[in-house]
């Protein structure tokens, strides 16, 4: 008998094939598992047409919930009680954004390596070392003491988990299939992580080091001159002249010799603010006689979209607006009585404290005359395809010592601005009940409800703008502001000196606020909260005043304002910065030194009317020129490989250009000749035209700003093909329409209050997080075109059949 061995050969071949096609290799997903039409990615190819009515039986509901989807597939959730409402919100957010929920939580918690392997290790270590876990745990514990908020968070969590448990592997969002992992159950702390992530995005910048370095090089006089505590030009959020109707608490006295210096730290300059705007106008200046309110928070834009729109209706609440997936309620929105919005406050809520250890064991550190115990926390990081990593982080009463000697990664950009051997004191570590602010705003009826809601809020500090049907408008830069001496935390601080610590907080009811100011409107654009009459020190630098000033100028000119006037202002590309410096720049160009191309470019920019419109060529020239000029003026003095420093602000540079013709800063100290203002302006102009020419050829349509800037919205995990194509948009950091390459208005909203509230809005994305859905990026086109969608807010009874395209009923499963 002869047995044919080829059987086993074929069997082996088949098994090997199965194994290879079922295994994730490098960046590729397990091929056959991914391409299989029954369980792979094809299952996420959503049809354009969806069923109009369906019913789902869900465990965990107490009554019936109806979810109506409008033409943009925005859910309008109607529940019989609050618990069911938040349950259904969790359920439906998970249905649209499950992978985003998972990925962002993992990001914040330092757990990305578990699913994407070693390339995320530095990032995970960074987020752990920054104390994201401490912040989230503190927040969760604090929220849970509040019975009502605990109910909200628990119901929301149960809703997300009800959705997850209804899934089969074929239903997992495509990113799970690409990265080959499974969703895990949601926990209430995940919501805390996502809120802390907002602090990490908006309130974690720090210039403390470079300034310390600059101080040691140039001395206090120069630093005072170049880095003043209040800018040359400003238009503060709380209008100048507003009186403060409270008795301020005593402010701590500045100790002598507060400055510390540091060396050998390589720093990235703090990025200028992202560019959010909001404003509200009293009925006395609007066409309807009722207030109008607008808000466009700017962030690094991603797909799936940062925000999620929904309407939440139950007895006691009927609110419409956007939420961050993972956080219950509505964060920016309106109800029939009020509307509110937020922009970021750049207050100083992050400081660094030099730690003095007793000895090399690093078990004790000095505070005053005492030695305190260091707490050692072990962070365990699981890594896909590798051994688990353990990291010990040293904690002081200030916060974590992010890196001690030898712990800082050399090639990880995010950690560049972290001084070695310093403890981090950061607002994000504070216990807080921020979701209660939104819970109460969602139900607010008037200005006093708004005031009360704001008191719970800690971080990241926001300019809360408000308008009510009762014709009140208000704005409050709001959050936990540490009580500081003037300039405290501008430089690095000494952790062993108790006088350097935060001395409590500015009483929450003394945060700057204004209600119904004379001028008939309120606004904010990340600039200074208040002028120098405000009794507390919040920070020495904020985003430049130009956007705020433009908004205020336009609003002051408006009468009988309409929604469309507000829409145009949101899309306004005018730059007050260009208005401020264009003439002085052109005047200082030495025309005789220019070639033909440069002369042509100069003629073009001469006629420019300061608008960063996409079809204009001048903004491309101006933008490159003024940046080059700023670095030309400062970098010869301020760039020092051993002692990196920050260069003075745009505001200070403008002041120099406008008021000083002979400053020593114009001279390039690296050449033997003495350069003048005219020399540096001319040289940088020539360089600008030269680099535009080298990149885009002769002056042509290729030089247009829309093309040179090139905006696009990338996928959250930068998966190619899942982002948008390049969008042709205008705007700049100094225009109200502050769209840059990757940042921009992540939500645009305009609300017209009155007997019947009318609202408009959209974001650069869509409701669905599924790249295979027609609702993944369906709002991008209108967004890029500066248009708004009409928002459907239904008040009672049956919703309008013309607006509702699909209905899902959730029924309790017995």
């Amino acid at each position, binding site marked *: *008998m*002869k*047995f*044919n061995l*080829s*059987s086993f050969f*074929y*069997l082996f*071949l*088949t098994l090997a*094939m*199965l194994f290879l*096609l*079922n295994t994730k290799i490098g960046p*590729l997903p397990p*091929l*056959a*598992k991914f*391409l*299989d*039409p*029954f*369980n*792979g*990615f*094809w*299952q*996420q*190819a*959503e*049809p*354009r*047409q969806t069923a109009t009515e369906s019913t789902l039986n869900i465990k965990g509901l107490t009554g019936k919930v109806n979810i109506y989807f409008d033409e943009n597939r925005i859910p309008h959730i109607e529940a019989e009680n609050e618990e069911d409402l938040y349950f259904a919100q969790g359920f439906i957010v998970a249905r649209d954004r499950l992978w985003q929920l998972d990925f962002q939580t993992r990001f914040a918690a330092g757990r990305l390596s578990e699913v994407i392997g070693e390339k995320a290790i530095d990032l995970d270590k960074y987020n752990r070392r920054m104390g994201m876990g401490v912040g989230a745990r503190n927040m969760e514990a604090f929220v849970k003491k509040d019975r009502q908020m605990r109910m909200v968070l628990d119901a929301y969590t149960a809703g997300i988990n009800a959705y997850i448990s209804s899934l089969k*592997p074929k239903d997992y969002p*495509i990113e799970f299939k*690409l990265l080959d992992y499974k969703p895990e159950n949601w926990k209430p702390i995940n919501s805390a992580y996502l809120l802390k992530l907002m602090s990490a995005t908006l309130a974690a910048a720090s210039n403390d080091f470079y300034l310390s370095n600059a101080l040691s090089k140039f001395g206090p006089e120069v630093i005072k001159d170049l880095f003043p505590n209040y800018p040359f030009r400003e238009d503060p959020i709380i209008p100048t002249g507003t009186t403060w109707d409270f008795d301020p608490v005593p402010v701590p006295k500045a100790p002598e010799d507060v400055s510390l210096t540091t060396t050998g730290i390589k720093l990235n300059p703090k990025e200028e603010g992202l560019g959010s705007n909001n404003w509200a106008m009293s009925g006395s200046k609007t066409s309807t006689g009722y207030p109008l309110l607008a808000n466009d928070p700017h962030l690094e834009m991603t797909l799936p979209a940062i925000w999620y729109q929904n309407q939440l209706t139950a007895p006691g609440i009927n609110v419409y607006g956007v939420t961050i997936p993972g956080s219950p309620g509505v964060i920016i929105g309106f109800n029939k009585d009020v509307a509110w919005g937020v922009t970021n406050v750049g207050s100083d809520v992050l400081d660094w404290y030099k730690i003095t250890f007793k000895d090399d064991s690093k078990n004790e550190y000095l505070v005053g005359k005492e030695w305190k115990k260091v707490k050692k926390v072990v962070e365990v990081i699981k890594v896909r395809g590798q051994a688990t990593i353990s990291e010990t982080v040293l904690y002081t009463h200030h916060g974590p010592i992010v890196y001690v000697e030898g712990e800082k990664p050399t090639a990880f950009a995010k950690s560049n601005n972290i001084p070695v051997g310093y403890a981090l004191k950061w607002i994000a570590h504070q216990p807080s009940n921020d979701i209660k602010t939104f819970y109460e705003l969602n139900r607010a009826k008037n200005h006093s409800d708004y005031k009360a809601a704001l008191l719970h809020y800690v971080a990241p500090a926001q300019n809360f703008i408000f308008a009510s049907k009762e014709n009140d408008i208000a704005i409050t830069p709001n959050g936990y502001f540490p009580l500081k001496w003037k300039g405290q935390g501008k430089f690095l601080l000494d952790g062993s000196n108790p006088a350097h610590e935060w001395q409590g907080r500015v009483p929450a009811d003394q945060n700057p606020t204004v209600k119904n100011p004379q001028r008939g409107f309120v606004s904010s654009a990340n600039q200074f909260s208040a002028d120098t009459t405000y009794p507390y020190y919040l920070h020495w630098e904020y985003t430049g005043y130009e956007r705020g000033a433009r908004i205020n100028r336009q609003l002051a000119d408006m009468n009988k304002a309409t929604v469309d006037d507000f829409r145009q202002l949101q899309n306004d590309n005018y730059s007050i910065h260009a208005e401020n410096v264009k003439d002085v720049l052109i005047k200082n160009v030495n025309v005789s030194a220019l070639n033909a191309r440069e002369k042509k470019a100069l003629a073009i920019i001469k006629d420019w009317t300061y608008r960063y419109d996409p079809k204009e060529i001048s903004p491309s020239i101006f933008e490159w020129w003024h940046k080059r000029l700023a670095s030309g003026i400062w970098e010869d003095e301020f760039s020092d490989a051993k002692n990196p420093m920050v260069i003075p602000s745009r505001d200070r540079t403008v002041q120099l250009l406008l008021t000083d013709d002979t400053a020593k800063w114009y001279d390039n100290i690296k050449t033997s000749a003495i350069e003048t203002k005219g020399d540096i302006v001319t040289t940088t102009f020539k360089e600008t035209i030269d680099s535009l020419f080298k990149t885009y050829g002769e002056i042509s349509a290729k030089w247009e700003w829309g093309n040179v800037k090139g905006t696009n919205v990338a996928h959250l995990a930068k*998966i*190619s*093909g*899942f982002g948008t*194509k390049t969008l042709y948009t205008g705007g700049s950091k100094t225009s109200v329409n502050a769209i840059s390459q990757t940042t921009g208005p992540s939500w645009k909203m305009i609300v017209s209050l009155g007997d019947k509230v009318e609202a408009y809005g959209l974001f650069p994305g869509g409701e669905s997080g599924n*790249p*295979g859905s*027609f609702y993944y990026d369906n709002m991008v086109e209108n967004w890029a075109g500066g248009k708004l969608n009409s928002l459907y807010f239904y008040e009672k009874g049956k919703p309008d059949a013309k607006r509702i395209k699909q209905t899902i009923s959730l029924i309790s499963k017995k």
Partner: protein
Amino acid sequence: MLILIIIVSCFIAQSFLPWWIIAPVCLAASFFFSSSKKQAFWSGFAGIFILWLVKILSLSLPNEHLLANKVGQVFMLPAADNNWMVMIFVSSLIGGVVGGFSSLTGYSFRKNSLKQK
């Protein structure tokens, strides 16, 4: 005949089980019903190729190939409106190859067991 058995039984099995179930199903079907090496391989290959192709078309056509075009870029194809053709062909091909070799294995075991009798 074999091809029909493969299509029907794999369709049923795949509705409940992961993709690799096509291998044991094709193997078993060929073990019992194949008549030649060639017939076994091509029935397995064409059976799964057709099953997957039809299933994919039923999902991707109503989606207007929106997702397939994007996923093409994940696999390094340039941004284009016809990536879906490549994606559909490659997906069906991979299914077909697994089906073909599984059937071939089934046939060769059949031949062995016949010889042994």
